[in-house]
């Protein structure tokens, strides 16, 4: 799926994810939080990657392997991004900042998050959620 760099299009991609997950029998709670991770990744790609440039697109791939994993790839056409620059939003000096929590939430709700340079010069992020046979993703205490 390719999306134009507009926040309204986040709804389209999330709708696609909801349908895929429903068809694949992924549990509702897992779908909700994976959807949140997708929304955050898309918001980053549109705002920070493509800088809302209407001529740039966001490329989205969602793959559900029932009973094994749910994989999402989001790639923008921006100028690249260094995830190491992201500050910890839970540290006392950052607690009252009004931004900077998106990647933290993505990492919290997914099992694997991998940033890499995209083929188009921007940033590619791969998100993976492991699924059990019942379609549940599970959210471990350790991730906190």
């Amino acid at each position, binding site marked *: 799926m390719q999306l134009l760099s507009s926040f309204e299009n986040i709804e389209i991609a999330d709708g696609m994810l909801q349908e895929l997950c429903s068809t694949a029998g992924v549990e509702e709670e897992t779908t909700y939080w994976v959807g949140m991770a997708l*929304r955050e990744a898309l918001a980053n790609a549109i705002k920070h990657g493509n800088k809302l440039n209407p001529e740039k697109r966001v490329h989205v791939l969602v793959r559900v392997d029932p009973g094994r994993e749910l994989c999402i790839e989001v790639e923008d056409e921006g100028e690249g991004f260094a995830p190491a620059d992201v500050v910890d939003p839970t540290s006392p000096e950052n*607690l009252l900042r*009004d931004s900077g929590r998106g990647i933290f939430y993505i990492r919290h709700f997914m099992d694997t998050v991998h940033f890499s340079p995209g083929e188009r010069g921007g940033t590619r992020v791969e998100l993976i959620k492991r699924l059990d046979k019942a379609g549940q993703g599970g959210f471990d205490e350790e991730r906190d």
Partner: protein
Amino acid sequence: MKSAIREVQDVRVLDLEGKITIGSGDVQLRQLVEESLQSGRTKILLNLKGVTHIDSSGIGEMVGCYTTVARRGGAMKLLNLPPKINDLLQVTQLITVFDVFDNEGEAVASFNA
């Protein structure tokens, strides 16, 4: 996001419904709080009962509103936090920042305690 404004004693209650997400509800929330401050209402209670989705932009806007209201000598508190929003505030430790209530009467009374 849909919203309704009520006055309970000297507290402005903002009843919010739907999504507080990037590009839509987040901006509306900021405008609602700004308008409240401009009209002299510095005790603000956000009723989140009908909110189905919030993202990091919405959470960030809530934090921004909280600090803006505090700088103007007021207070912003939260009412009827849905479980999923509670989870999001817990993991980012923002639950330690906001005063959260399940009962509107108690929330309103707390502003003048």
